[in-house]
């Protein structure tokens, strides 16, 4: 049957999880395209189940579809089996809601959620039949607009986008939609460029000043030298989607998400989100209770998750938790926190809210010694951690998950062994505390590799070499032998690629395109990621991945992302970096 044109329904019978490509989920929007001025396809460059768990997508979908003049439909990266079918039968990528080919939309809005999805971005455009590079697009092509946390350093994907929103989207999206509604492409681009936070890469050139990301992005005549990070002023009153989409398929997070807080006042030196989403803003308890009421009624979910980089830091978190539990507990609707601060207060809070369901608790000490925790500015003391553990075990938890990082700046072997030592002492403590229930103790220890991120004090720091990360993993493995401990890793090769994109410049886009042509897809999925393919692609592009990932960058040279103004100025980052190296806290 190959080569024969088939209807889409028959094609669905041939792929895994066909509901990834159908529509009709509860709260999906079905708007008449005839009456609107701008039609958006909102694309998420990963599989449906991941993309549907992303709050940002639901926010933009809600804002656009609540407006009478605009329309938004969704599309996700097709899994390789579906890609094969689409290509074999010459079918273009289509939106879920109305099964409209993507190239018929006025704009494609693509979220840039993490670096390892970049090959999927190219694949989406190619499957849609849209020229990959903005320079090759013409009047009949949709505008391709990026956004999301990738805006912190848009350079590795800059040439594939007509415009990229740098910063927060819920207000900017309506201004962008007005610009998209322009009669022609040139007018649209001109109007996009006028929007605060919108970067139009074609109005800039990149002038490299050496290997790696040393160089300047310089504006053409009239374009602003720096793009300010867009910030929502009144977060409490900003749009929040209470009619959240309810997928049929089991997704990563199937629950009502309440964003209780944006930003984080903690200032961990490795954390990009904590640095760029500033200032810290809160939603009021009354607002959140109202949103919970509407969202539970509109979705039928049995869980409410309180989202924030450090939700427990919300000053009214205790009151919020108690009132949510009192209101929804009797209906069998639970409340959860994505991660906890490691202290007794957090556990007491978790105890309040997890009366309905008792899942595991997660803490992130990040480093194994007090010295390194001070250097990275992660304020967790051992006393706090043990107090948290004691509170957890005495209130019935027996499953704890701990997040650590290896390869952090200033790390020594002592710090790596410190992780093993800390976990051993915690396990011993837990056995004492659990006594008769000790057989059930489970300590999940998840160890990731440090990735230097732009606009953080560690943006100049080198990522550890693959050899060094491997050696540190083996060291931990040798020293962390305990039947209650389950050790897991992130793949250092994936972290190296993440670092190369995170600190990439415009030249890296060539490597990206080469890798995509060599078949790179879904690099965040361990089973599909092939590091060799990426090394070949960088070589083909005349670049060395390690110049981007593993070089310590000089602090007195321009960087490829200096034109993005994230709010925290470079001088402050330099000062923080110097303090970290000197072993000082803030």
């Amino acid at each position, binding site marked *: 049957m190959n080569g024969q044109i088939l209807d889409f329904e028959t094609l669905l019978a041939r792929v895994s999880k066909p509901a990834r490509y159908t529509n009709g989920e509860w709260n999906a929007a079905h708007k008449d395209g005839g009456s609107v001025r701008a039609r958006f396809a909102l694309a998420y460059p990963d599989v449906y189940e991941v993309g549907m768990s992303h709050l940002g997508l639901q926010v933009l979908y809600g804002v656009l579809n609540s407006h009478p003049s605009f329309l938004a439909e969704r599309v996700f990266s097709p899994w390789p089996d579906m890609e094969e079918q689409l290509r074999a039968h010459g079918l273009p990528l289509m939106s879920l809601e109305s099964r409209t080919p993507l190239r018929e939309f006025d704009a494609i809005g693509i979220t840039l959620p993490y670096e390892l999805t970049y090959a999927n971005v190219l694949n989406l455009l190619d499957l849609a039949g849209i020229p990959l590079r903005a320079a090759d697009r013409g009047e009949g092509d949709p505008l391709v607009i990026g956004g999301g946390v990738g805006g912190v350093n848009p350079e590795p994907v800059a040439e594939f986008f007509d415009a990229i929103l740098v910063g927060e989207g819920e207000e900017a999206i309506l201004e962008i939609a007005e610009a998209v509604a322009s009669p022609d492409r040139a007018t649209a681009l001109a109007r996009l460029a006028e929007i605060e936070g919108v970067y139009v890469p074609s109005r800039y050139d990149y002038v490299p000043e050496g290997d790696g990301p040393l160089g300047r992005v310089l504006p053409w005549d009239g374009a602003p030298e720096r793009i300010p990070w867009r910030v929502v002023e009144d977060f409490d009153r900003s749009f929040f989607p209470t009619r959240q989409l309810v997928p049929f398929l089991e997704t990563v997070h199937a629950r009502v998400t309440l964003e209780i807080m944006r930003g984080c006042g903690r200032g961990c030196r490795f954390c990009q989100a904590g640095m760029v989403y500033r200032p810290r803003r809160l939603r009021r308890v009354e607002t959140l209770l109202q949103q919970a009421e509407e969202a539970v009624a509109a979705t*039928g979910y049995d869980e409410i998750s309180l989202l924030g980089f450090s939700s427990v830091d919300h000053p009214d978190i205790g009151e919020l938790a108690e009132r949510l539990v009192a209101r929804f507990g009797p209906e069998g609707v639970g409340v959860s926190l994505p991660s906890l601060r490691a202290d007794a207060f957090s556990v007491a809070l978790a105890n309040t809210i997890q009366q309905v369901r008792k899942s595991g608790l997660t803490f992130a000490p990040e480093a194994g010694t007090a010295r390194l925790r001070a250097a990275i500015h992660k304020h967790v003391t051992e006393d706090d951690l043990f107090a948290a553990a004691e509170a957890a075990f005495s209130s019935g938890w027996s499953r704890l998950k701990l997040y650590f990082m290896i390869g952090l700046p200033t790390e020594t072997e002592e710090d790596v062994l410190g992780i093993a030592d800390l976990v051993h002492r915690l396990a011993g403590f837990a056995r004492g505390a659990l006594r008769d229930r000790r057989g059930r103790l489970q300590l999940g220890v998840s160890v990731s590799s440090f990735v230097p991120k732009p606009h953080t004090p560690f943006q100049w720091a080198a990522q550890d070499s693959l050899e060094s990360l491997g050696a540190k993993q083996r060291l931990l493995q040798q020293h962390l032998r305990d039947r209650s401990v389950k050790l897991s890793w992130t793949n250092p090769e994936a972290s190296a690629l993440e670092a190369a994109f995170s600190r990439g410049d415009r030249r890296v886009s060539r490597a990206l395109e080469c890798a995509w042509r060599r078949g790179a897809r879904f690099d965040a999925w361990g089973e599909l990621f092939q590091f060799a393919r990426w090394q070949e692609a960088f070589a083909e592009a005349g670049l060395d991945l390690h110049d981007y990932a593993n070089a310590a960058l000089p602090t007195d040279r321009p960087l490829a992302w200096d034109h993005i103004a994230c709010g925290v100025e470079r001088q402050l980052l330099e000062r923080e970096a110097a303090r970290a190296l000197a072993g000082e806290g803030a």
Partner: protein
Amino acid sequence: MAQYVCRYRKGGELRWVGHLDLKRTLERALRRAALPLELTQGHNPHPKLSYGPPMPMGVTGEAEVFSLHLREALPADNVKERLNVQLPAGFEVMDAWIVPGYKRRETFGELDVAEYRVTMPTAVSVAEVQERLQALLARDQLVVTRRGEHEEREIDVRPMLLSARAEEAGEGRVALHLRLRTGSHGGAKPGEIVALLGACDPEAARIHRAGLYAGAEAPPPEAPRPQTALRRTWGRPRRGH
């Protein structure tokens, strides 16, 4: 307290939603409908629901059933209407009724025969399809291969093929009426019979489950209306499993 049986339709795009996902969809719709659900006891309370035999992926149906328990006895039509307002397109309760005599749990275990209507786009004539069906029915064994999670298994589906006939469906299509044994004690999948016929790509066939019945040994010569079939078997004493 009251127990209800709902007969529902699963159609349109919803046919790509598997049984487990459909169950979750119903649970969420029930919560949106704010029906006074009776929840199970324990750490993870959930509504007491049971379902008829699952349908294969891609199949539509109109005789599907589930049962639910409410803390208070509402009129069955009220339950049906409140639920239908909250169900996504393609999922519709056609009929709801209160089970006389509260049972702790209804498993629908007695539903073991399914009637399918299959529409096949094919160049093969209806007479030829009918002949091939007769040939299949005349065989002692019909061995098909099923792919499990780890291994392939060979299964004889001949005892599960109870009756089959073909008719013209117009526009280059032939319709099959298949009566197959189904349920937890083993059953044939309609796609397997379509594949054995070799008249069309099984993936291109449109399969619809038109009825579910209890009692395979003596299939009624004419299909009763599905809901009637259910009501009829309702008072029957339960066989031990």
